[in-house]
């Protein structure tokens, strides 16, 4: 791993050079005060000192709606043409939670020897510059509990604020190229980085009352608990948690027909297991008809199923679901209520 530094006064120039090479997405302060990932044209639009991004980078990795196939008739004969998105894109300023989510995507979308070409095409044309955190974003964060406060993957380069400069680590060839013109890190910079790492545990208090390595066992032991029913009494099945969750990547495939009724495209749209019809089959059987079944399924995915399938986090502790819940349901509080297997 290549280690460089970007001096703070050199950062605007560094960002501006990135912006010049490809479409660039970075945290931008909104009039509402929220920070969102948005396309940027100038370095001074980019915010690096922000509490949290209200939405994750999901929309750039897996757009809410994307064409996967064009179909129609050419000279009377039917045709299909697969569609992939290969626009070069640079993502800047993603926190470790979001980087770890991308690390999860990378494994999930290549799982079962089935490569999701649409995801991979986009991913191969993407450069990701992460931004380390020195403290939790706010009271909703529980990244330290999920062991996702440190990025395990999902980035090409990672910036850590060490005071007068950003410590810059390249994890890929792409990242090395990005940092090629930056000065190498010295022993002093490495010492500053080590000091930050040492101070981490105090700065990231735990919120889950047990080691989350136990989470799969606790969930399994509490499958039949009335906790799910109780929590689900407050749930509207609105899907806000799914919408903001960086590791909720389920989708639907739908056809959109052109006005000529012959041509059109097949599109992939975000979908969510909290929504009523998600597990319904034709003929009307719904395998998760009850709200608590859907809520339990989602929390099992976050705490057990995804990690068991691909060995990477199913929940990155970003706290967005709790922050977005219209009914103040908390995944942290729910996990804390479960004592199954404990």
């Amino acid at each position, binding site marked *: 791993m290549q280690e460089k530094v970007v001096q703070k006064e050199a950062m605007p120039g560094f960002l501006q050079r990135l912006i010049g090479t490809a479409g660039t997405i970075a945290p931008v302060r909104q009039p509402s005060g929220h920070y969102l990932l948005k396309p940027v044209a100038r370095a001074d639009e980019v915010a690096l000192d922000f509490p949290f991004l209200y939405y994750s980078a999901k929309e750039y990795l897996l757009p809410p709606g994307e064409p996967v196939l064009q179909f129609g008739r050419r000279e009377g004969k039917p045709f299909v043409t697969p569609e992939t998105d290969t626009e070069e894109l640079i993502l800047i300023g993603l926190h470790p939670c979001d980087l770890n989510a991308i690390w999860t995507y990378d494994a999930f979308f290549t799982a079962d020897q*089935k490569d999701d070409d649409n995801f991979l095409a986009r991913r191969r044309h993407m450069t990701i510059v992460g931004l380390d955190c020195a403290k939790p974003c706010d009271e909703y964060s529980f990244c330290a509990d999920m062991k996702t406060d440190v990025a395990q993957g999902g980035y090409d380069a990672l910036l850590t604020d060490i005071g007068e400069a950003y410590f810059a680590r390249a994890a890929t060839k792409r990242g090395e190229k990005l940092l090629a013109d930056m000065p190498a890190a010295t022993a002093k910079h490495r010492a500053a980085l080590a000091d930050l790492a040492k101070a981490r545990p105090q700065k990231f208090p735990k919120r889950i009352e047990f080691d989350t390595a136990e989470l799969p066992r606790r969930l399994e032991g509490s499958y039949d608990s009335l906790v799910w029913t109780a929590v689900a009494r407050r749930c509207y099945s609105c899907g806000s948690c799914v919408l903001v969750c960086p590791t909720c990547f389920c989708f639907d495939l739908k056809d959109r027909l052109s006005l000529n009724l012959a041509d*059109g495209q097949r599109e992939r749209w975000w979908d969510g297991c909290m929504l009523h019809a998600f*597990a319904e089959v034709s003929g009307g059987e719904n*395998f998760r008809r009850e709200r608590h079944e859907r809520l339990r399924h989602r929390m099992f995915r976050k705490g057990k199923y995804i990690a068991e399938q691909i060995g990477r986090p199913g929940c990155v502790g970003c706290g967005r679901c709790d922050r977005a819940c219209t009914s103040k349901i908390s995944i942290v509080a729910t996990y804390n209520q479960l004592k199954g297997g404990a």
Partner: protein
Amino acid sequence: MPVTSPTAEPRTLYTSEIAEVLATRKLTEKEMLFTIRLPGGRDLGHAPGQFVEVSVFGSGEAPISITSPPTQKGDFEICVRRVGLVTGDLHRLEPGAAVGVRGPYGRGFDIREFEGKDILYVAGGLGLAPLRSLIKATLSPALRSKFGRITILYGAKNPGELLYTDELREWQERGDVTCLVTVDRPDEAWRGNVGVITTLFKKLPKTKPANTIVAIVGPPVMYKFVILEVFMVGISESQIRLSLERRMKCGVGKCGHCQMNGLYVCQKGPVFSYSEIKGLREAIR
């Protein structure tokens, strides 16, 4: 073994091939049998119990089980119940029409597990469609001698909903097959058994449970009751195969709709052994 035709566009995981509807045959008021040919008459290369994502371009895709046996070459068959947008539009297609096909997907029946054994087939309603693929394979002249006694139990709501009535008659007339059919609600002309599928177990020929393998496909509500009957006969957990219906929207383990607890049914199933799913709370109710 999938073969890509040299003229094809670069394919992605979600690229359908354009296939041709060779023939359609109305089986019941709601079910239609389609014979489909892939480009160049390429073999689909499926195992019984696998499914394809079939699309009518502009309406969308639906997962449909393959009803023809692997021994049928040059084309394959699907049996489609008219229930929604895609299946409704499929029913309006005529021979010569183009449909999209992706697959075959999922894990089907492993026919080798049936060799040397007596076979008990249990089909409820549309469940006969996927099971027919396996039934026809095991009854094919080339393979029949590999299996012992073959028993088929089939139930439908009423006589009008019985699928493949011509083949049922054929199976009933064969000396090497016991084929028992029942309906929940008879009409005036019905002379056969009346009652739900489990009532046929009383008429089951004497079986050697230790050497019997069972394949069950039917509506979700049927499994628990049929499996109970199978256990009462003395057959063991590891000798039961069943196919579970879920919403297999993408067919390739990504979209999440078919997930049953932690398993993607389109990847690990739809065919399971009872031993594999007995601990899965969402599998059978």
